[in-house]
Structures are given as structure tokens and as C-alpha cells.
């Protein structure tokens, strides 16, 4: 009896019930028209909209488009950060000269550049990807710089004295540290890249999940708006969980080295 009660109490304390209660209350408020469904739609309508978008494949095409732009920009940002970090790390002189310029460019609200980029590259993928690149490149510059600084020069000297080669130093000391900082960069960079992609889609009206959500808002289709948001939330959550797991594995690997 006691075990049964404890089990029932455990089941009742599962977070899923919050979602069930939320959806139930929402359906009730909307169904009884306590608040007009025009403003809040209803779970049933949102599910129908999501089904329509899923069955004709629109949601997948839009998600794929947004994520492709985000990840291409992210990849370019990671690659582009390497020469900047190299320039800043090559000597104290270059660091002193260029660090304030990099800091200034970093402080520019990059979203403000969208109109300039659209004027330069036109409405399309190039301006979108370039903006995402600008959004993320400095995140990796700062993370890789921090990673390079973290390596204790005395540790490097000790390794050299013990006979470790340059390649050994890079693979055993520098890369594990940089990977860890790169992972921290990814945890900030992925949501930032997705934010950049969606914002450009809002602003320039290109295809993608951002356009779907924005167009639904301005055409007063709350059910499609919620369907678009509902499609994106699990994707973003999945990336977050994936990166957390990768990060913990990487930490374990670093500790084992």
C-alpha cells in the first residue's frame, strides 16, 4: 500500500503533468471563449496547423532552410575566427594593435548591419549567411583566445623538457583546451546563429521558419504562428541537450588526459 502511494506520488510529480494541465486549461479557455480563440488559438487548432504544415512538408523545408543558413554561417564563423585569433596571438604587438579594433567591431549591434548587407549583397542567402558569420565569428575569437591563454607556459616548458614534440604539445595540450573552449563557443554560437537566421527572415521576408512565424503574425493566423514556434522549440532544446552531453564527454576526456 505504502509502495503504491509512493509510486502514485512519484508519477504525479512528473513534469509532463504541467504540460498536460497547461494544454487542458488553454483548450478550456479557448473552447469556452473566455478569451477569444483569435488571440490565443487553441491546442487543437495549433495541432491542426502543425499537421497541415507537416503533411505538405512546409515545416521541414522551412526548418531545413533556416538551420542550413545558421550552420553554414556558424561554420564560416568558426573557420573565420582562426586567422583573426592567429593575428592576435602571433605577437604582443599585433594583439595590442588589433585587439581594440576587434573589440569595437564586436560591440557593433550586428543586426543594424542587415540593411547595409541587403544593399551590398541583395536580398538572399549571401547577406543572410554573412550576417550570421558576423554574429558568431567574435564568439569563437574570444573563446579561442581564452583557450590559448589558459595553457600555462610553464606546463608547455615542462612538456618540452620532458621531450614532447611540437605535434605532441598541440594534440595533448593545446587542442583539448581549445576544444573545450570551442564547445563553450558552440553553446552560445548555435542559438546566436539561429537567432540571426530568423531575424534576417523577419526583416527581409525570405523563406524559412522565421518568415513562416512572422507572416502568420501579420496575417493574424495565431494557430500557424504557434505551430511554427512549437516546431522550433524542440529543435533548439535538442541542440542544447546534445551540446551539454558533448561538453560533459569532452570534460571527461580532458580530465583523463
Amino acid at each position, binding site marked *: 500500500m505504502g509502495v503504491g502511494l509512493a509510486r502514485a506520488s512519484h508519477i504525479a510529480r*512528473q*513534469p509532463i503533468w504541467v504540460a498536460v494541465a497547461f494544454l487542458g486549461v488553454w483548450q478550456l479557455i479557448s473552447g469556452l471563449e473566455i478569451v477569444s480563440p483569435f488571440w490565443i488559438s487553441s491546442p487543437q487548432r495549433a495541432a491542426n496547423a502543425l499537421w497541415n504544415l507537416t503533411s505538405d512538408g512546409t515545416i521541414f523545408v522551412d526548418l531545413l532552410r533556416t538551420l542550413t543558413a545558421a550552420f553554414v554561417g556558424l561554420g564560416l564563423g568558426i573557420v573565420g575566427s582562426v586567422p583573426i585569433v592567429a593575428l592576435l596571438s602571433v605577437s604582443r*604587438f599585433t594583439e595590442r594593435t*588589433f585587439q581594440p*579594433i576587434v573589440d569595437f567591431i564586436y560591440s557593433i549591434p550586428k543586426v*543594424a548591419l542587415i540593411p547595409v548587407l541587403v544593399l551590398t549583397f541583395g536580398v538572399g542567402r549571401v547577406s543572410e549567411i554573412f550576417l550570421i558569420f558576423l554574429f558568431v565569428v567574435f564568439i569563437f575569437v574570444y573563446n579561442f583566445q581564452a583557450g590559448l591563454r589558459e595553457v600555462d607556459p610553464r606546463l608547455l616548458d615542462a612538456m618540452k623538457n620532458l621531450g614532447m614534440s611540437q605535434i605532441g604539445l598541440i594534440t595533448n595540450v593545446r587542442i583539448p583546451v581549445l576544444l573545450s573552449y570551442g564547445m563553450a563557443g558552440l553553446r552560445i554560437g548555435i542559438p546566436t546563429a539561429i537567432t540571426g537566421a530568423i531575424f534576417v527572415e523577419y526583416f527581409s521576408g525570405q523563406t524559412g521558419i522565421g518568415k513562416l512565424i512572422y507572416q502568420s503574425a501579420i496575417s493574424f493566423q495565431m494557430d500557424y504562428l*504557434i505551430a*511554427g*514556434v512549437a516546431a522550433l522549440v524542440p529543435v533548439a532544446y535538442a541542440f542544447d541537450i546534445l551540446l551539454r552531453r558533448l561538453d560533459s564527454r569532452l570534460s571527461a576526456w580532458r580530465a583523463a588526459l
Partner: protein
Amino acid sequence: MTTAPSRVRRVAVTSAVWACRVGVIAGVAWWMQIAPGRWVSEFAVAKPSSIAAEFGRQFGSSFFYHAVLTTVFHSVVALIAASIAGILSAWLLWSSVVARRLISPYLIAAYSTPRIVFLPLFIFWFGFGPTTVLVYAIIACFFIFIFNGLEGFDAVGRRLVGAMSVIGLNKRQMLGHCLLPAARGYILAAALVAFPTAVLAAIMGEMILGGGLGGWILLERGKFSTTGLYTATIAATVVGAILNTLAQWTGVILRRRMGDEAAR
């Protein structure tokens, strides 16, 4: 004590660093001055001389000051509202283990979702206007306060909390006399991260909804004025940088005060 040759060397290096910086900036400015219409489209790059003239014109008009004040207003109000909402929510979650367990997964899911997806939802509910900008900027900062607040409250030892309960403090007194003072370092750290976020969110919201510096950018975009766009962008950058610097200075002063109080 530094010797004369080392001082000379230091001055020489500093001069070379400044010469390089000025050289890079002057090179970019020179390229921007001669490139439009010759190497790049006039729509893509604005001449520094035109930008300077536009700045001169804008400084003399009330529009510029109104735009700056609007963005500052949106950022500061959003920061204050998000801090109150975030800290109170953190306190409620900290007070109830069950509520925290039930709600945490949804909070993390919402936090990992780019906040920009919620902007159209707010446009739908609050319309095209400053309320939507404010709500969006509040949501952008809210999660920073709730997570830092929770971390700060968790850092307060349960033994101390138990002792406070024994001497008869109720939950509200506990918040005011024990939790908030103990977690103020975390809350200050949250505020320092949240303020640039609030400024950026305000500008992003304004770029869609109008008003403030973002609205100025939107206006210039509508006019296809490259010079206007560059001027508005530079203004947004400089104002953002000044606000961030002020926030960092305030943070340094507050941290120093906290350190002094802790030492006493």
C-alpha cells in the same frame, strides 16, 4: 625603477602600436571615401565625409536625442522589470522543490529557444508599438535573472536558512534579510550580462516595430539612404558601447562596495 633605454623602448612600441591602429582606421576611411562609385556600388558604402555631414545635421535635430532616449528608456525599463520578475520567479522556484522540479524542464526549453521567435507572438498580442519592444526586451533578459537568482539562492547554505527559520523569519523576511543580500553578487553579475542584452533586444525590436535607434535604422532603410543607414548604425553602436561601459563602471563600483562591506 625603469631605466632610460627601457622607457624609450616602451614609448617607441606604444607609438608604433598607435601608428598601426591609426593607419588601419585611416586606410579603411580612405577606401570608403574613394571606393563608392568606383570599385563598389554607391548603395553599399557611404563616404565618411557624407556620414560626418549627416551626423552634424542629426546632432542639431531633436530626432537624434529622441531616438537615443527612447532606446535607453526601453533598455532600462526592460532591465528593471526583468530583474524584478526574474528574481521573484527564482525565489518562488527556490521556495518549492516540487514546483522547481515540475517547471525546470520547461524553463530550460524556453531558455534554449532563441527569444526572437516570440517577437511575432508579442506583435500579435500587443500590436506594432513600444509595448511589444518592451515585452520582448524583458523576455530577453528574464531568463538571465531567473537562472542567476536560483544559483545565488542555492549558494546560500540550507543550514543558514534553517537557522533563520528557527529564529522566526517568514518567507518574505527571509528573502529580504537573508537571500537577496547573500545572492547580490549573482544578481549583479546577471544585471551586467542582461544590460547589453536589453540594449540589443530593444534595438532589434525597434528595427521591426519602429521607434528609437532601431526605428531610425528602419527609417533610413525605407529611404534607401546608405549614408543615413551608416549614420544610424554608427549612432546605435556608439550609444550601445557607451551604455555598456557605464554599466560595467557601475558594476565595478558596486562590486568594490560589496567587497568593502564584506571586509567590514
